């Protein structure tokens, strides 16, 4: 990391290493396969929410249709590996590339829309996709779902083992995080945030705003597709309801609860929502003897409360005390500033 980068964006190594450490450590603490499944799903969903976070938090564009891209990945992998006996790895890459181009083509007209209209158009895309996978039942298995998707194997090591899959998923998630961080911590990240603040001013500075919006949309779709492929190989079964609007909304909620303003928020939000679901279930069943219905109510209530009182998400709450710590260090930085206000740091 160059000095200049440190000056511009602060340190990223520490939180990244913290996360890596956490991921490496967890298998020693957690033994339950139930928790592993949740951790694996958090990894998979994080890949989607990271892309979505770039789109929503940085570029300021809403999407209620990412479950469709998630689904394209899952079904490409599923269909290519079952009906055409392709290597899962190849299918995964084909899925990503296809999704990228589909999203790019869709994005060109759709990202001209703003706010509610964009939300509705992406929602429409999700519904169209849903109907297509139901309708093309020769290929996709229709409503009955697609069974017998093979598990992944890496260098002869079958990833059916939860531990291996856990590491595999999180390696992928960390790579996606790294890519996202690279984007965010570069001129592109600045461009995206500028688009969020003022599209007009950004255009005036010579930025082809449309291209950036579409590129990020397509990229986030490709991430979703990657996650979809992993999902298909992990569960080894896919059925259309998994890719309905409810899932898109779930992704959106994860991003917003974590805090769309930071890529770390995406991972945090995904983790919190996944565990929240389980906790409501667990605490509700064990201590209050309540059943499924109440879960939905509590879930809805929590979403409303978080959006009302913490519209910037949980990341904002967490980063505040950290920032306060940094204030103390500010004196140090001040002297640093003098140094870097000259050229050639």
């Amino acid at each position, binding site marked *: 990391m*160059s000095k*200049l*980068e440190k000056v*511009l964006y602060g340190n990223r190594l520490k939180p990244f290493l913290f996360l890596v450490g956490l991921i490496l450590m967890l298998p020693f603490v957690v033994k339950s396969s139930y928790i592993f499944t949740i951790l694996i799903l958090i990894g998979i969903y994080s890949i989607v929410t990271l892309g979505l976070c770039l789109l929503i938090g940085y570029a300021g564009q809403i999407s209620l249709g990412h479950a469709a891209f998630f689904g394209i990945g899952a079904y490409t992998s599923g269909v290519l590996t079952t009906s055409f006996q392709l290597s899962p790895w190849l299918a995964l890459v084909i899925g990503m590339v296809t999704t990228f181009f589909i999203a790019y083509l869709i994005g060109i007209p759709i990202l001209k829309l703003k706010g509610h209209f964009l939300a509705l158009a992406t929602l429409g895309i999700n519904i169209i996709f849903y109907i297509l996978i139901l309708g093309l039942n020769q290929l996709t298995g229709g409503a009955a779902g697609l069974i017998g998707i093979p598990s992944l194997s890496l260098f002869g090591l079958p990833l059916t083992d939860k531990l291996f899959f856990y590491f595999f998923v999180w390696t992928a998630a960390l790579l996606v995080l790294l*890519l996202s961080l*690279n*984007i965010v911590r*570069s*001129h*592109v*990240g*600045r*461009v995206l*945030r*500028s688009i*969020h*603040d*003022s599209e*007009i*001013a*950004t*255009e*005036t*500075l*010579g*930025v*082809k*705003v449309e291209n*950036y919006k579409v*590129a*990020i949309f397509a*990229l986030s779709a490709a991430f979703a597709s990657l996650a979809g492929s992993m999902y298909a190989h992990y569960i080894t079964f896919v059925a259309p309801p998994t890719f309905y609007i409810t899932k898109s909304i779930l992704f959106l909620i994860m991003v917003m609860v974590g805090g769309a303003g930071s890529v770390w928020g995406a991972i945090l939000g995904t983790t919190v929502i996944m565990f929240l679901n389980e906790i409501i279930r667990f605490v509700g069943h064990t201590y209050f003897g309540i059943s499924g219905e109440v879960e939905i109510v509590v879930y809805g209530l929590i979403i409303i409360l978080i959006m009302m009182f913490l519209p910037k998400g949980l990341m904002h709450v967490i980063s505040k005390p950290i920032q306060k710590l940094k204030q103390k260090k500010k004196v140090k930085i001040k002297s640093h*500033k003098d140094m870097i*206000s*000259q*050229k*050639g740091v």
Partner: protein
Amino acid sequence: MSKLLEVRGLTKQFGGVTAVSEISFDVGAGEIVAVIGPNGAGKTTLFNMISCFLSPTNGEAYFKGNKLTGQKIPQLAHLGIARTFQNLQIFHNLTVLENVMMGAHVKLKTNVVNAAFRLPRILKDERIAYDLALDAIHLVGLEELMFEQAGQLSYGLQKQLEFARAIVYKPDFIMLDEPMAGLNDYETNRMAGYIKKLKSEGISFLFVEHKMATVMELADRIIVLDFGKKIAEGTPDEIQQNAKVIAAYLGEEVV
């Protein structure tokens, strides 16, 4: 003096109302031209048409012989035209430094792909943007505030920031929409100083302004609009003597 900007018969109608009517003028290289006129006279509309934010009902504008009318907005920056806005358009959630670095966009080759994989090009671009931005920040004297969020700055400082962002990539021609509005005398003088300094480096300006003293001091030529029409054009001295201008701009005496 060679012509940099040529405006030919620009007209804009909204519904049935003509906001700007048949306006033509030139801006030469290294020249400062001011557009004045009462509120609602069509100055901003004219500005927006030249900078391609509005497409004119009639007429066109040329820059260095290239037709501007019908171009996409981002293209203008690549041609060497920068502009500021009447109601500030800074990026509130970016720091001052990042705001100014955004101005260097046309000099950079960063795109989503090479950024994602952090190719060496990126670090080079960051360096270029940073160095250019520092020059601009030094010019307007915002060094102390480099790492503050732009949204936290006072209005006057935001105005300076927007100016700095516009000049980062050394455009040939800068359009300023009321650059002095809301500035105090000290700030106004400083801003005038920056403009003069850049003029000495051969950059041309077209600006809209209400503060007459500044206009008279800075402008080589003044164009006066009233009700969408150009009612006068000339040097500051000529304009001050022009009876039509006095009537339109100052209002007739109340009987």
